[in-house]
Every structure is written in C-alpha cells, then in structure tokens.
C-alpha cells in the first residue's frame, strides 16, 4: 500500500475504542411517542405544515424549509400530532418540536419500500437536486448542512471532484463503518447520484485505515462504477474534517474563510450518500438513520437504525440500559460531541451516536498555568496558536483574536486534548468565536 495519505498540519491520536465496529446494524422498534424538532439543520427552521390533532403518515411533509439555507422535515412515524410545542433539547434550552403519539406504521404511498437494489439513475441533474431538496436530505456527518445547497454550485466556481467522507475519525463511533460494510452498493449508487447532481466525473471516497474491511469491500465494488476511487487514509484525528480531508485526498488547501467549492471540491458524508440513494431511487425522505450506542460500561454496544424522533432513552435501553457508573452522556463522539443533560432528548438528523462515559472518565484534568510548551500549536490542524487565542478570549481582546484567525478554528479539540496543563483551551476559543462572530455580523449590518 505504500505510505498512506494524510493532512500535513497537526493532528492527534486519541485511542480508537471502536467497541461496536463488528456489530451489525439492528433495526430499532418504533417508539410510543416521537419528538421531532422543527430545526434539524444548519440554517433556518422549517415552517410547520401540520397542527395539533392531525393524523400523519410516515414520510409526510410536516415542516417546510422556506429560506434558502433550510430543509424540509418529514414525519418518521405515523400517528396523531399531540402538540407543536417547545421541547427541551440536549443543551437544556427549549426548541419547537412536534410531539406525536405513534399509532401503527403507515407510510405515504409514493415511497418504494421494496428491498430491490436499483442501480440505474433515471433522473436528470436538476431533478436530482430538486428531489434531494424535497426529501429533506441534510449532511449526516453532524453539521446537518442542507445537501441540495451544496450541490448548487455558485456563479463563477466549478466543481471538479466529489469527496465522500467515510473517515469517521471520532473514537467510539462506528455508524458510518457499518453503513459502508452493509450498504456498500447503495453507497456507491448514492455517490454516482451525487456526482451526476454536481456535474462531476470523479469521486474519491476517503476511508481511514482502521476500517480495512470497508476499504476492501468498497474497492471491490468500485470496479463496477465509473469514476469512483477509494482512498485509504492514515488514522489521525481530525482526518474527517472537511478541509483536512480535501487536503489529504486531492492535495488542495481551502483558503481561510472560504468554502471547499473554492478548490473545486464538494464533501459529503457516506451516510448522506446512502440517504441520497434512498431518496432518489426509492423516493424515501430522511426519516431514519444509523446511530451508535457505545461506551466502556455499556453492556451491549451496537449500531441501531432508529427513526428520527425516537427518545435516546429507548436506544440506550436496547443497548443494555444506562450503566450505574455513568458520568457523562455525549451526543456524538468524545472529541466534538455535546454533553447531554439527560436521556429525555430525541434522535435528530445529526445524531451519529451516543457515548456514555464512566464516572472516572468524566472529570476533567486539573487546570494549571500555561507552560507555553506550544504542543497545542503543533497539533492544531488549521495552523493556529490556541494558547494565544484562549488568552485573548479570556482577556476580551477581540480585535487581536480576529487578527490571529480565531474564526478559522474548526473546534476539533486537538489543542485541549494535548495540553499538559489541562487548560480548557477550546472552551475559551469557542467563547471568543461567539463574540468575534457577533462583532463581524454587527460590522456587516452597518
């Protein structure tokens, strides 16, 4: 295989702990009540199309994304809408959501539920983009950016390569791995659909080298598809970051403050490619996804295909129940996931996994003075100086922080992970990004 490709700046190697890598995808039973937030994507929330008391079917449009960067929401369950109300979201704040009492499992007629594998792509480029828009497909890598917007190349830019992110660099998470292994053909067709939608002839699927079975499986399948190459990548966090992935696969660096289309690339998650297959070939909107439930104390870690809106508590029950020594609940992976306040929150389009950390793993390292060892500088994949940015955020020196490119930070957490003094670097940088972002927005308004 030779030397594996990777990105050149920074990176760390947290222990992989892929406890559920060999667990096949299990389909979750339907919940009794589903909580479907109106806003499950980056951008504006959807406008409700149904109201209290309405009977709805699986796949029915229940919220319409009307702004440019917005997405439709379809019902993942059938039953009666109990209310459209503010429901607690993972951070403890309230967001509007549909609460549905689940009755049966009736689907909208237009969805093709047969298991038949359809390889031929019958739709044109424009039809593909419209279909993806209508069926509410968003990026399943975690950022939940509306996928149809990514396919609409702005004036003056050309797309050359489609890059599929099969990296899954976060420790513990294995959802993408299982999708690549079990739904490989569908992923390949989904990739071809995205290629057609984008108007490119070349696609690269980047997979980290700790998923050798997925690499060989997809490499075998790629022989039957035109223009798709599989690119094994060195195991390094954050290889799955958009800019790092583009640098590793096609050796181009996205300039600061610009989008990947600047260098002719568009990146989509492998789960999104699968959802695109189901949308375009089967007319199925985004109503379910694979979620990994994992953790060292979890008795039956696994990967579950769950409907959007299923309370997380039910998935944890299926994985063996909440362990007694649980210290932290994390939505996502340990490096970039959000700490949840309780299990009373639902699965949303962006939920890639739930990680349960033990009590002894949950406390932070004691904070000491910064010893200016500059390890954070050496691991930052964007070439920033986290120790300086954190100091500026603490001291409220927003102008200096902006000059030192705080807005380039991708919040990967490598700096915080490496710091020998246990300083909460990313916390301060996030605060700084928040304030500097506000300042920039206010400047734009003037």
């Amino acid at each position, binding site marked *: 295989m030779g030397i594996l490709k990777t990105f050149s700046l920074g990176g760390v190697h947290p222990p992989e702990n892929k406890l559920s890598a060999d667990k096949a995808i299990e389909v979750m039973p339907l919940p009794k009540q589903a909580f479907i937030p109106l806003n499950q994507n980056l951008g504006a929330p959807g406008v409700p199309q149904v109201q209290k008391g309405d009977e709805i079917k699986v796949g029915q449009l229940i919220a319409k994304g009307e702004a440019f960067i917005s997405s439709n929401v379809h019902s993942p369950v059938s039953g009666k809408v109990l209310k459209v109300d503010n429901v607690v979201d993972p951070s*403890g704040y309230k967001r509007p959501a549909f609460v549905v009492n689940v009755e049966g499992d009736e689907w909208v007629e237009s969805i093709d539920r047969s298991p038949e594998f359809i390889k031929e792509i019958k739709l044109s480029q424009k039809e593909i983009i419209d279909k993806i828009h209508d069926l509410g497909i968003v990026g399943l890598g975690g950022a939940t950016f509306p996928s149809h917007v990514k396919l609409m190349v702005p004036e003056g830019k050309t797309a050359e390569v489609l890059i599929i992110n099969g990296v899954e660099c976060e420790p513990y998470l294995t959802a993408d791995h299982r999708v690549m292994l079990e739904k490989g053909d569908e992923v390949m067709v989904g990739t071809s659909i995205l290629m057609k939608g984008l108007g490119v002839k070349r696609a690269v699927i980047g997979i980290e080298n700790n998923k050798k079975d997925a690499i060989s499986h997809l490499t075998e399948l790629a022989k039957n598809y035109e223009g798709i190459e599989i690119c094994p990548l060195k195991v390094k966090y954050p290889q799955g970051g958009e800019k790092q992935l583009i640098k590793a696969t096609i050796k181009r660096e996205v300039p600061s403050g610009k989008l990947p289309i600047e260098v002719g690339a568009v990146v989509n998650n492998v789960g999104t490619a699968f959802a695109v297959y189901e949308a375009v070939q089967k007319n199925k909107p985004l109503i379910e996804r694979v979620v990994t439930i994992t953790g060292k104390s979890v008795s039956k870690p696994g990967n579950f295909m769950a409907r959007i809106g299923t309370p997380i508590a039910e998935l944890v029950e299926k994985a063996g129940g909440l362990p007694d020594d649980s210290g932290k609940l994390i939505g996502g992976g340990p490096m970039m996931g959000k700490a949840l*306040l309780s299990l009373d929150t639902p699965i949303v389009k962006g939920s890639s996994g739930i990680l349960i950390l033990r009590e002894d793993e949950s406390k*932070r390292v004691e904070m000491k003075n910064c010893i200016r060892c500059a390890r954070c500088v050496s691991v930052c994949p964007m070439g920033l100086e986290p120790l300086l940015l954190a100091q500026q955020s603490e001291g409220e020196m927003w102008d200096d922080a902006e000059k030192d490119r705080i807005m380039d930070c991708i919040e990967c957490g490598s700096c915080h992970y490496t710091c020998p003094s246990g300083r909460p670097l990313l916390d301060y940088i996030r605060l700084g990004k928040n304030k500097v972002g506000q300042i920039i927005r206010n400047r734009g308004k003037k």
Partner: protein
Amino acid sequence: MIYSVISIGSIGIAAAVILYFVAQRFKVIEDPKIDEVEEALPAANCGGCGYPGCRNFAEATVKSAHDSKHIEGLNCPVGGNDVMSQVAAILGLEVEESKPMIAVVRCNGSRENSPQKVQYDGPATCAFAHNLYSGEGGCPHGCLGLGDCVASCAFDAIHMDPETGLPVVNDKCVACGACVKACPRNIIELRFKGPKDRRIFVSCVNKEKGGPAKKNCAVACIGCGKCEKECKFDAITIENNLAYIDHEKCKLCRKCAPVCPTNAIHELHFPPKKVRPPREEEAGTEPAAPKAEKKEEKKEE
C-alpha cells in the same frame, strides 16, 4: 575642567530654550472648566456615565453646557446628586435631582429552590456556561452562579453567597451598570433604591410557562397574573409568562407580594407585617413568615 562646565552648561541652556518654544508652539488650548469639572468628579473611571473615563465625561459636560446650555442626560452615578450639583455650579447651570439607583439581582434560584440536576465542569465564567447549556438547576433563564457580575464590579459591591449560589448586592453599589452588562442572561437590573432603601421587584426572569418553570425552580414566576390584578397603580405587566414591576410606577404599597403563589415577589427592607390568619393558597402557609426571614438576611448585607 572649565571647558566641560561651559559645554555641558550651554547644552543644558540650549535644550531648555528649545523645550520652552516647542511647549508654547504645541500647546493644547483647553477650556479650563474641563479641569475644574474633572476635579469635582470621583475619579473612579468606571464608565458608569457611559463615557470612557472621568476626563471624557468632563469634556462632554462642558461641551454640552456650551452648545446646548444644559447637561441633561449626563449623570455621574458614582458621585450622585452631590457631584452633579457641584458640576452644575461650575458650569453655571441648574441640575435636576436624580433618584439614586441600585443593582438588583432578579433571580432567587438558589441551590435550595432550584436543586442541582447536573454538575458543571469547565471555566468559571457565565458567558461560556450560558452558551453551553441551560444551567445546573435546569432553568434556562436563571443565574448560573459563576460570577461574571462579581468580576466586573469595580466597587466591591456584589459578592457570591456560597450557600445559595446567587450574587448579593451591598450598599457600596453606585449603579454604574457594569454587572448589568456582564450578566449574559440580563438578570441584573438597575432600579430605584427607594426611600429608606425599600424596593419591591419580581425576583424571576423566567419566560417559560408555569409547568416547566416550576419543575425547575420552586420560586419561579409562573405568569398567573394575580399580582397584576392586585396592583392599583398599573405598575405590573405580564409578558411572556413573566410579571414585571415598573419601578417608576410602583408606590411600594406591598399589596402584590402576599398574593404571589410562588413567593416570587420580594420586598426589601420593610418592617415585618402583622401576621394575618392563613389564607387558602397554593403556598399553604402564612406568606409573611418566609419573607421576614429573607428580609433579615438581606438586612445583614
């Protein structure tokens, strides 16, 4: 020896002459009144007047007096009426007496009232915690207890009470407004100090409906509207499930506080009420008793 004396001496004299002419040439002409006004100011440079520093405030007052013949809208909260009347005297103007104000913390979500549901682990700054999650007690509008307000105070007037986890304002407060700006949840407000230091306010900024609000905190305002009905002076408004007492209209009649079912309305520094026969309310017990205790606590500060 004599040569060195002459040479050094002449260099010195030449330098002095040059400096004198340069000082005259580049002299900045300033209205002497600015110095006089600055003299009268407390020199705290706290920014409470809205200007960066006492010198700038002095310049603003002189300019305003010169241009518009009044200094309305310009007030030094630290110096208060004494200082402003002095400033007015220097400028030859009349000034209106402004009522003294004080910072009021409008949250009573102590550890007892809003029990801890999760543990926070991270930097001790409210700004960050506010962005991260709702709060240890669960209320998304309540005090986070990490002390950004305490850190912002230049007058040693606000401190964290370790038992309740809430900030407490003492007499040193000059209503400069720094803590108001520092609080990311707008819990602190500047209100009139009131005669004999007495004031009434709703100690809650929760905008949730009654059910969720009470789930998180026992003394939350549930927006029931009883106080609004009781008030004869139209001082209370209910908006977004939250009652608000307008301190300009409030006459301190104390009729609203006892009708609040969750004890969310606080009366500060009033004498204890005569105990009435217990009323049938959700709270159950005499409304006067728990408030008397609170008053004791606050009086000690």
